């Protein structure tokens, strides 16, 4: 069995199984040659996208070992295990566990642990499996490995090999200027990255957060009350750490790692950094109902994001009641239950158009300091869309004396206005601006005392019927 893909017009093998490898086939071979060597070869098209998504899925699964997982296409994964190895009792035990679990799922993998991504890549691909490099031991560990282990482009690697430089150690012994002159910058850069002399940025699938707590269960759990309980437990564990370092977080993400490798996640956001375990666990509770435990959940991880210093605050007795900290639990509870956009504080925007004068801001954000003009009458209820009314206005610039809204007649007794509001012409191309796009607003009161905000669209031109709209109610 082999997979083939077309590469510059030539069909080549991209992967072979054990049996095919035994017959002397290898990836990169021309499909026609392979077919000649092994007439019974079964071939199939390689599916690059499927490989890629499977790798991403595997990366998500690996988040149980470390929150910082970066893919290395086509077939590698980087795990940043800084600070998490002790949870397994050491790096060796972690690697053992990882490869063991992968093996049980039918995935053969090799691993290398080193202080830099480059060195660990080299060890995983070319070193002995499960090599652990002690701190600062990268140079010694890499010295016997072939030059290709530096992640060089094949052309350069071949060129170096042709000069008789076989191992990384030999290459490293040469003067750097000579290497650069001969092979370009890439070789030196890769060498430095492998030895930790230059830094390398990995694109982690999720931004790594050192604020991670993890609970492993001897038996998989699935009962809803168990989920609630472990959520409370894990929140206590993480919050104790946050508290001991004087930190609080604005966002928490809870991941349930299931037996089948899926990891449903639930996240909550807070308006102020917090670390009260009970409150955080309570915010998660309504979300747990939708978690499908599948065949069972064996590991739960909780990560904190947007961690900021958060000092324990002593409330003064004479402080006014409405402090931000007191309101934060309410705002968090409501916005997590109803949706973040459903809880807001209105803030003034510098715009004279009524629809644009109000901005919705998170309730506990710092006020920007704008204010509406108190001299201009504004309604208490503003319709999202003005509603058309049939109005009778005796003179061109007069308010209506009578109008009909939703079938009900309203005879006007008192009126104020007009207040002319023009469109914000600077928001659109100049040629689209139209001086006729103005509204003349009147505040009117009918016989019963109901107060309305009506406007006439456009200035009076004398031709045709002026259109009137109702835009709001004053109560």
């Amino acid at each position, binding site marked *: 069995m082999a997979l083939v893909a077309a590469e510059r017009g030539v069909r080549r093998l991209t992967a072979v199984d054990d049996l095919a490898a035994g017959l002397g086939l290898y990836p990169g071979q021309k499909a026609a040659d392979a077919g000649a060597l092994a007439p019974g070869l079964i071939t199939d098209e390689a599916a690059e996208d499927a490989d890629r998504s499977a790798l991403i899925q595997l990366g998500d699964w690996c988040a149980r070992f470390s929150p910082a997982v970066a893919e290395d296409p086509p077939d590698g994964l980087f795990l940043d295990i800084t600070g998490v190895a002790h949870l397994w009792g050491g790096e060796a035990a972690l690697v053992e566990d990882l490869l063991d679990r992968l093996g049980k799922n039918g995935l053969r993998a090799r691993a290398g642990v080193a202080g830099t991504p480059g060195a660990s890549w080299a060890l995983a691909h070319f070193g002995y499996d499960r090599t652990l490099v002690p701190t600062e031991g990268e140079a010694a560990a890499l010295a016997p490995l072939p030059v290709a282990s530096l992640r060089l482009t094949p052309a350069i690697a071949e060129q170096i090999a042709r000069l008789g430089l076989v191992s990384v150690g030999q290459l490293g012994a040469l003067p750097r200027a000579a290497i650069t002159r001969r092979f370009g910058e890439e070789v030196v850069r890769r060498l430095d990255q492998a030895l930790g002399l230059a830094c390398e940025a990995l694109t982690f699938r999720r931004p790594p957060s050192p604020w991670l707590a993890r609970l492993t269960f001897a038996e998989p759990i699935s009962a809803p009350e168990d989920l609630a309980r472990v959520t409370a437990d894990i929140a206590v564990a993480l919050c104790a750490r946050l508290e001991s370092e004087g930190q609080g977080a604005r966002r928490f993400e809870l991941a349930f790692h299931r037996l089948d490798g899926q990891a449903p996640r639930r996240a909550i956001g807070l308006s102020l950094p917090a670390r009260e375990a009970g409150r955080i666990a309570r915010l998660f509770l309504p979300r747990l109902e939708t978690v499908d435990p599948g065949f069972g959940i064996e590991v739960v991880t909780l990560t904190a994001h947007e961690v900021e210093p958060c000092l324990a605050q002593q409330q003064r007795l004479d402080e006014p009641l*409405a402090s931000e900290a007191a309101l934060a639990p309410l705002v968090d509870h*409501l916005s997590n239950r109803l949706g973040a*956009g459903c809880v807001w504080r209105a803030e003034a925007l510098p715009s004279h158009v009524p629809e644009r004068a109000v901005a919705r801001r998170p309730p506990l954000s710092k006020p920007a300091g704008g204010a509406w003009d108190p001299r201009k009458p504004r309604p208490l*209820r503003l319709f999202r869309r003005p509603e058309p009314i049939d109005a009778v206005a005796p003179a061109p610039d007069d308010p209506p004396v009578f109008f009909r809204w939703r079938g009900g007649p309203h005879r006007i007794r008192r009126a104020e206005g007009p207040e002319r509001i023009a469109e914000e012409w600077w928001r659109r191309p100049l040629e689209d601006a139209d001086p006729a796009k103005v509204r003349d607003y009147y505040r009117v009161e009918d016989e019963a005392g109901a107060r309305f905000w009506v406007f006439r669209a456009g200035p009076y031109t004398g031709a045709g019927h002026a259109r009137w709209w109702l835009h709001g109610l004053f109560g």
Partner: protein
Amino acid sequence: MSREARFLAVRAKVAAMEAPAMPSRAVAPFGDPAIDGVFAEGGLPLGRWHEAAGEGMEIETAAATAAFVALLATPLAAWGAVVWVMRRDDLYAPGLMGMGFPAERLIQVKVNNDTQALGAMEDALRTAGVAAAIGEAREVDLTGGRRLQLACETNGATGFIIRRRPFGGKGRRLDSGSAAATRWTITAAPSGPAQRGAVLGMAGLGAPRWRAVLERCRGGRTGGWIVEKSDGPYPLRMVADLGDRQLETPPLLRLAS
């Protein structure tokens, strides 16, 4: 123990259960003896919840009720935040500010149904730092009302329910037994003389006025007044007593909880 003594003991127990957890002596006076006199406490009792409804089109738009309730809640805003829970988010903050309500103290919450609205109200009332919670709901049943009352008692916050069917439709007549401390019917009333310039041929608008009918008042009497927005120490000023003392007193509802 004699039969009578046992009876007294049980009665004391029931009284202890019925009493609010926190003695709510606080009131918001209207500043007019004619109105304040009908309340047993001498003003709108705080730490309870109140209900206001409109009539006609107002059942859907609830503009006059919102204005009246906002004015009642204005003095409370000095003590903490005010949470306004609504199903239809057409409340316009500049208008509130124009009525003298501190809009920066207002947290608006949009919900999808009455159950969520009452839940959010309860959560808000239980939070320290919230002085008042205003909710727009179609109706509040006895259980919901009792729950609101308990939430009010935790911190002494005051609740207001604006009865509103935000999207119209045929509705039942809006009345039922209720655990509210007071129940008002608010309709707009023609305003008085104008303060500002009028348009040619038509008088200008005066301070907004409402016809406020106190339909039910626990431990007090009912009444009806024309009130007007005032810039004085109290947000509302009485203009006239409707004087309809013949308003029949609804049977005082006692909850046996």
